[in-house]
């Protein structure tokens, strides 16, 4: 029996409180897990390679960016594949989660109209599916690290769990908000696609953080307002582990500035913490907004 089972009254009224929403989501946690699993299952059910596709996607990106940036543009970043993957995988989680979440309520119209369950599960499970993909794709990265006996920044590895959590909260917050908006404004899906494309290039994934940060001034300040920047460079610091390596291009002895040189663990931890706090606040705001408009979903679909 459910927790409120026999004793309590379940109240359906015009508004639901934040606490009630969170309790309902918790009660449906098994369904959340199952819908994540279902999304992955359904995606690969009738494909021969199955989950390998998840890993092929970053592999292909790797080849393309490697050719373009390392061979053609000669950016000189040593161990470029490792550099790229340490940012790209976390970005994939973020963008797949948000893109999937945005269309989730409209796409799940059949059950939204016919079944009573916390609808927050739909966008959240899209983010969950992104998280599972992230872990699958990480296998590629970990294999590469082991294969090349790459030395990661051990003392910076504790940054990864909080950075991941902050990112998931942020993706969840935006996913909740955008999925609800998309019910009324169906253009949201398309706008989100474009926005994510722009956001990708505003985040230091294929180019180093210092390329922009070094310039100082207004542009750099603006750049640093992007919360994804701090998550990505925390990952790069922990995995790529080379703030200022020697250029790999040509015979030069130039140093390439990738990450802030004199930044210690607490520099990253502080920024990840700030992003995490903002993400948590946004998550609650997203939840509240969702709860406010959710009552109209079944009539608007």
């Amino acid at each position, binding site marked *: 029996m459910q927790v409120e089972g026999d004793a309590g009254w379940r109240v359906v009224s*015009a*508004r639901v409180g934040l606490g009630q929403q969170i309790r309902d989501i918790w009660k*449906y946690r098994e369904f959340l897990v199952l819908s994540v699993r279902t999304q992955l299952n359904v995606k690969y059910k009738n494909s021969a390679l199955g989950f390998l596709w998840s890993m092929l996607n970053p592999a292909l990106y790797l080849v393309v960016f490697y050719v373009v940036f390392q061979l053609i543009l000669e950016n000189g970043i040593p161990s470029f594949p490792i550099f790229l993957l340490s940012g790209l995988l976390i970005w994939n989680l973020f963008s797949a989660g948000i893109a999937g979440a945005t269309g989730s309520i409209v796409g799940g119209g059949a059950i939204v109209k016919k079944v009573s369950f916390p609808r927050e599960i739909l966008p959240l499970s899209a983010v969950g599916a992104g998280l599972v993909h992230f872990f699958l794709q990480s296998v590629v990265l970990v294999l590469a690290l082991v294969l090349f006996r790459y030395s990661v920044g051990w003392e910076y590895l504790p940054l990864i769990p909080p950075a991941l959590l902050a990112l998931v909260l942020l993706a969840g917050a935006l996913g909740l908000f955008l999925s609800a908006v998309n019910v009324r404004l169906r253009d949201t899906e398309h706008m989100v696609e474009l926005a994510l494309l722009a956001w990708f290039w505003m985040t230091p994934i294929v180019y180093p953080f210092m390329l922009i940060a070094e310039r100082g001034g207004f542009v750099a300040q603006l750049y640093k307002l992007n919360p994804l920047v701090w998550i990505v460079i925390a990952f790069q610091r922990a995995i790529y582990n080379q703030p200022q390596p020697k250029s790999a291009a040509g015979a030069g002895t130039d140093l390439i500035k990738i990450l802030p040189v004199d930044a210690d663990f607490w520099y990253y931890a502080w920024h990840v913490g700030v992003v995490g706090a903002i993400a948590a606040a946004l998550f609650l705001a997203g939840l509240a907004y969702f709860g406010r408009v959710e009552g109209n979903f*079944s009539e608007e679909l």
Partner: protein
Amino acid sequence: MAASILVQNVSRHFRLYHERQSTLKERLLQFRRTPYDDFWALRNIVLEIEKGSTIGLIGANGSGKSTLLKLIAGILRPSEGEVRVRGRIAALLELGAGFQSELTGRENIFLNGSLLGMSQRELARRFDEIVAFAELEEFIDTQVRFYSSGMYVRLGFAIAVNVEPDILLIDEVLAVGDEAFQRKCLERIRAFQREGRTMVLVTHAVEQVRQICDAAAVLDRGELVAHGPPGEAIRSYREHLLEHAREREALEPAEATDDRLAFLTDQERRATKDITITDCRIEYRSGSARGYVLPDGAIEVHVAFDSKLATDDVNFGIAINDVEGRLAFGTNMRLLGQRVQLQPGPGGAVFQLPRVALLDGTFLVTIGITTYDEGTVYDWAEERLEFEVMNPGGLLGYAHLPIEIQVESVSPTQRAVP
């Protein structure tokens, strides 16, 4: 008895957009000019449903009964007021809603069950029962996209009723599936009633309400107009339909055949009202208590009428139908070779039925006053009355026939051991 559902001053408001503007371009071009009508689907509904009772929600199309069911289920939220519900709810609004066609029946049981609020452990425990109920043992590991629509629906029903709900909400889903499956659903519903679970049933089928429900609530244009025993509620429902029919007929006389009014029989529409039925009632005579009659008991049907005519061209008739609409018994004065002379003014007629040789069920009585050859209808009361026959046990079926069973053994030598 404790209440299990409390609907407290609930109103639900909808916006009916004339043309939905849902893309940004349309929004920007027509900012704040999206035309819509306010529409109250439900207004100030107050309803208390007792634990363990089965209640039918009836009403014409658009009366708000499905909206009310969705509010109780928590799929919609009220605009005003609140609904309080105690216990686990399973809502059968659409069987198999949320099935993933790419997944197998087995996977869908776990997915759909958890969507309905069941834990995986519970589902594992009930898995065999669900599969057996759905009769899908051979196909349970087949993707549901290969299922026939019957299989799909059976699986949906099997999962929903195995959620062990305290409250079961049903929206006309009993109309699906073949006859055998419908019977099974009905049996399951009876079992639910015996187990003291609460049920709310939305239906158009008045017979179903009579068969299954302890009470019924009638909605008319978003308002609760009656709530009581099935017979009374159905009468009120019919009266409201009749009222709508009259309004409609007044507006556009040519279009009296709206399908919503199909219950208005030809006879009722044709009634000249030169003689009107002012009242009719059933009196129980012997072998009967109030509200029901025992097999072979006696009832009388009393009809009060008012005549504008002095005529002998008149005929009083009676028909007794079962709830499925089959004629159990019927006759009139012409068939019985009787005649009568009427004077203008009020009068009364009594149909005496000293031996009701029926066994079990609810029966509906129709009274008609026509010309002697039944060519013209003066007035007609279609299924205005009902009585119930209570079977004391030991006999099955419909008709009460005298019976004795005699058995004789044949000579024992035939069973000689070789």
